[in-house]
Structures are given as structure tokens and as C-alpha cells.
């Protein structure tokens, strides 16, 4: 069964801490994405990557950075966590080219910043 795995389901961090959210996919997908999901606001794209060592800003990149050193792994970094970054974070991956793309989400990481 193909998977996108996020390393933590729940995290509690303190304001100002550096936070790493890890995502691994086993489908050999080219594309990987990080979203945050807040009630009523839907999915908002933070960063995405089309290839190893490549990254592109999404709609809300401020306060975040990413790393993609290997094809299967895409990390989201909060350099200095703030309370407004408390959210559900979702990783996804997909193929390039044409539909259906195999767009698959991880189970999510619920981050609370106190």
C-alpha cells in the first residue's frame, strides 16, 4: 500500500523553538507539498518541490522553510515557532505529467505552539 508518512501525529512546542516536520513517501513521486489546514480556511499551500533540492513558495511561505535533500523526503521547518503557527500540517506527494497524478496525503501533524 503506497504511503505518505508524517513522522509525528501530535507535537507541542514552545514559542521560539525551531521545529522540524518530516514527510516521507514511498511512491517515487517527483512532487511533494506542505499545507496547513485551519478550520473553515481549507488547505493553504506553504511550499512545494518538483525535484530534489528544488523548492517553490506556495501561498503562505512566511515563517517557514523547507528542505528536500532526497526524493522521498520533504521537511518543513519552522525557524522560530509562534502561536499563530498552531495548526494541522499536511504533507502530500504526486506524480508529474497527466491525471490522475496519484495525489496522496499523509495523516497530518497537529502542531500546538504554546
Amino acid at each position, binding site marked *: 500500500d503506497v504511503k505518505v508518512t508524517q513522522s509525528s501525529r501530535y507535537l507541542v512546542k514552545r514559542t521560539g523553538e525551531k521545529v522540524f516536520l518530516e514527510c516521507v513517501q514511498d511512491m517515487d513521486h517527483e512532487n511533494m507539498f506542505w499545507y496547513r489546514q485551519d*478550520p473553515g480556511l481549507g488547505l493553504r499551500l506553504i511550499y512545494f518541490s518538483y525535484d530534489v533540492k528544488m523548492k517553490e513558495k506556495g501561498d503562505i511561505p512566511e515563517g517557514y522553510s523547507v528542505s528536500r535533500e532526497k526524493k522521498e523526503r520533504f521537511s518543513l521547518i519552522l525557524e522560530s515557532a509562534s502561536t499563530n503557527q498552531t495548526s494541522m500540517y499536511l504533507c502530500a506527494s504526486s506524480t508529474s505529467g497527466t*491525471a*490522475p497524478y496519484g495525489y496522496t496525503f499523509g495523516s497530518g501533524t497537529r502542531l500546538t505552539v504554546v
Partner: protein
Amino acid sequence: GESVGLHLPTLSVQEGDNSIINCAYSNSASDYFIWYKQESGKGPQFIIDIRSNMDKRQGQRVTVLLNKTVKHLSLQIAATQPGDSAVYFCAEVDNFNKFYFGSGTKLNVKP
């Protein structure tokens, strides 16, 4: 239907009834559409997809209808069960392979 805002629209149905969840999309050039189901505390799961050259596609207990004239997508769930309770949202994919997600509709199934 779906909308952007602080509160999710909610659809309440009786167990055994059919459910219809609606989605309005914005880009007439979008050529692929997907419905996702997201249970509480979990990531979204693929339910069914449809390409723009179709107007209907059926799966197991689910049907997606696409009306390109009015840019409307719907998900029909037959004989709704308690396990169908979740947030459902649509996604449209444009001709640059970019995904756009709706904010979702919460389906509440009453026993």
C-alpha cells in the same frame, strides 16, 4: 456548497438516505477534479475523480457529476452510513497541473 470562511457548511442526513455535496469551481480551464474525504484527525483520502471530458462517473456508492456550463461539481453518496461522517472537499486541477482545494462541507450522518 463549499465556501471560504470561518465555519464549514454542514449537511445533516439520516442514515440510509442519499447525500449530495456540492462544489463550485472557478477556473473554466480546469480539466481534472477530485473529491476527498477527511475524517476527524486524519489526512484527506481520495474518493473519486473525473476528467473534464466526462459529466458523470460512478464508484462504489458514490457518483460525481460535473457541469462545466455552470462550473459545478457534486458528490452523491448513496445509502449514507455513519462511517461516511467526515469533511468532504473538492479539488480542481488546472492545465498547469496546479491543485486548488475547496474548504469543505461537513457531512453529519444521524443514526
